[in-house]
């Protein structure tokens, strides 16, 4: 990614297992989590796993998915007039596979439960197209699916769009809802925690999935928050993870700083990806210790809202911004003893009203992204 101007963050909205964005940050301040549980099919039996679920269930159908995205977008563009909307691109970052595809497979391709296949179903991007049309936005839509980095990468692409003069504004939506395929898949890989995510803790035993929908509006108008820049690459040791040394993550963080013409000492705090899984936490913390010194303030948000996969890019930045607006950086829950003694995430909320923040996202397939946001 070449060095480009920063763009401003003009607004954000979200819903998580803790409620809307305001409620989420309020409860985070009180150290509350949105963890509950869900029964899934795994290895021929029903298994109860911890899960961060939205209060109002979003069913796996196009009506529910569209409704949740529409509600979010309605709030985000509420104050934009017709002309501004016309120059607003819409990007969606999600790891959800197209439901019509799953339905097709379930209905026909395999012969377990045969039901008629309805072909009138939508691809993920058709939500963007329809939302764009309903709200009078630009024709430019994009749906990015790079697993955990989906909406983080969508933010970088949105910045590119604005800087290239294609549109004046861009809305990035991130979405993740319960998926039987995904939860069973993570379970089969032994990646789901039995209790709760414990990022960077020596006794961590896995991640906990979460549902969320979030959106961020970018543009050039004046705002106290900016997306300074970032870097994304694809560099892994295996198809699912980076090496334990964390060297791949080191490169991403350093190049993100370079993209923003910043040095490590310019970073006020870092929001880690920190899923609570064994290998990724080790790699990320090793990487952090190679890039920063031990005075770095860093934290993890997944113990509050879960691992929201494709939505994590947008929702975790939204939470960081709102928490700083409220005057604090959230502490990391459930980390009692860090993997690296000198590099422990904060265990008390840290007072903070402004600064420059790095946000990490490291996902499947070695797709790694670091973003930098700033509040003046």
């Amino acid at each position, binding site marked *: 990614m*070449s060095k480009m101007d920063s763009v401003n963050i003009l607004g954000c909205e979200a819903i998580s297992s803790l409620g809307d964005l305001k409620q989420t940050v309020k409860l985070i301040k009180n150290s509350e989590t949105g963890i509950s549980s869900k029964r899934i099919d795994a290895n021929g039996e029903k298994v109860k796993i911890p899960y961060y679920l939205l209060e109002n269930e979003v069913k796996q159908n196009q009506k529910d998915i569209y409704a949740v995205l529409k509600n979010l977008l309605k709030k985000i563009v509420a104050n934009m007039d017709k002309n501004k909307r016309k120059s607003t691109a819409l990007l969606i970052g999600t790891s959800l596979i197209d439901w019509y595809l799953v339905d097709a*497979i379930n209905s026909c391709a395999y012969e377990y439960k045969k039901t008629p296949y309805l072909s009138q179903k939508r691809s993920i991007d058709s939500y963007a197209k329809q939302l764009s049309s309903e709200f009078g936005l630009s024709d430019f839509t994009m749906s990015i699916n790079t697993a955990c980095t989906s909406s983080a990468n969508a933010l970088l692409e949105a910045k590119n769009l604005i*800087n*290239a003069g*294609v549109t004046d504004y861009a809305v990035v939506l991130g979405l993740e809802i319960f998926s039987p395929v995904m939860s069973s898949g993570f379970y*089969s890989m032994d990646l789901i925690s039995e209790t709760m995510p414990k990022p960077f803790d020596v006794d961590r035993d896995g991640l906990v999935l979460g549902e969320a929908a979030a959106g961020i509006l970018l543009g050039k108008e004046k705002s106290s928050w900016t997306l300074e820049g970032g870097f994304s690459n694809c560099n*892994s040791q295996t198809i699912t993870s980076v090496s334990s040394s964390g060297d791949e993550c080191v490169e991403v963080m350093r190049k993100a700083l370079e993209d923003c013409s910043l040095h490590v000492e310019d970073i006020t705090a870092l929001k880690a990806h920190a899923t609570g899984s064994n290998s990724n936490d080790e790699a990320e913390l090793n990487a952090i210790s190679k890039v920063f010194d031990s005075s770095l303030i860093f934290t993890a948000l997944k113990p509050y809202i879960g691992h929201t996969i494709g939505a994590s890019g947008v929702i975790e930045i939204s939470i960081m911004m709102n928490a700083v607006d409220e005057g604090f950086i959230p502490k990391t829950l459930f980390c009692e003893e860090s993997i690296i003694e000198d590099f422990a995430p904060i265990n008390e909320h840290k007072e903070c009203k402004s600064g420059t923040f790095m946000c990490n996202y490291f996902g499947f*397939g070695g797709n790694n992204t670091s973003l930098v946001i700033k509040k003046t």
Partner: protein
Amino acid sequence: MRKVALKISNAAKIFTETKIENLEEKRLVPNMMMRRRLTRNAKVMLYLSDKCSFKSGKIVYGSCFSELEETAKIANAVLEGGLLSPTSFQNSVYNTAPSYFSLINRDKDEIITISSGMKTSRETIKTAALQALVSGEKVLCVCVECINIKNIEEINKCAKYLEAGAAFVLETTEDFSGAKEIEDKREKGMMDSLKEIMSVVDMFEQADDKILVEL
């Protein structure tokens, strides 16, 4: 909206009605263990990128159906209550094919994965154009669909070619002379999600190496 002219330096396509027989896996991926893990989409992508002489750099990859075989295996295991293969799960994500490319070629550059239903190749080309415009670098734009799975005939009523893919290497140019809009030149029976990219490769093969894309 903004129009950009793209200069194409290399292009390739491949398609067949059932299964593409020779994707030159042994030459492209000498490591047997790695080769055995590759998905169909990954094999087609590696073949196409090799034909485009592209070993490293930015990639924009598109697929409507993604890793259908792996997804079907997972869906089947969930439905029948059988054991779910961790390998299938690892290989089921949309960015699996370009991730294997990254692993095999040690490419550390940016990769974006797009999925936009039947408009996938159009959106992938747009995104690749944006990447090229912003970075000033050459970008590999590649789309692959492999839907040759068990019982596919029960849901597939329109695609004749069940394995297909196309790729081209592009960069932006200030010189708009001779640049053409993408014409629909694709083979009848090609999946709609590959429509535009197949047409671009056809145009390139007919000596049209400059196209116009509206962002």
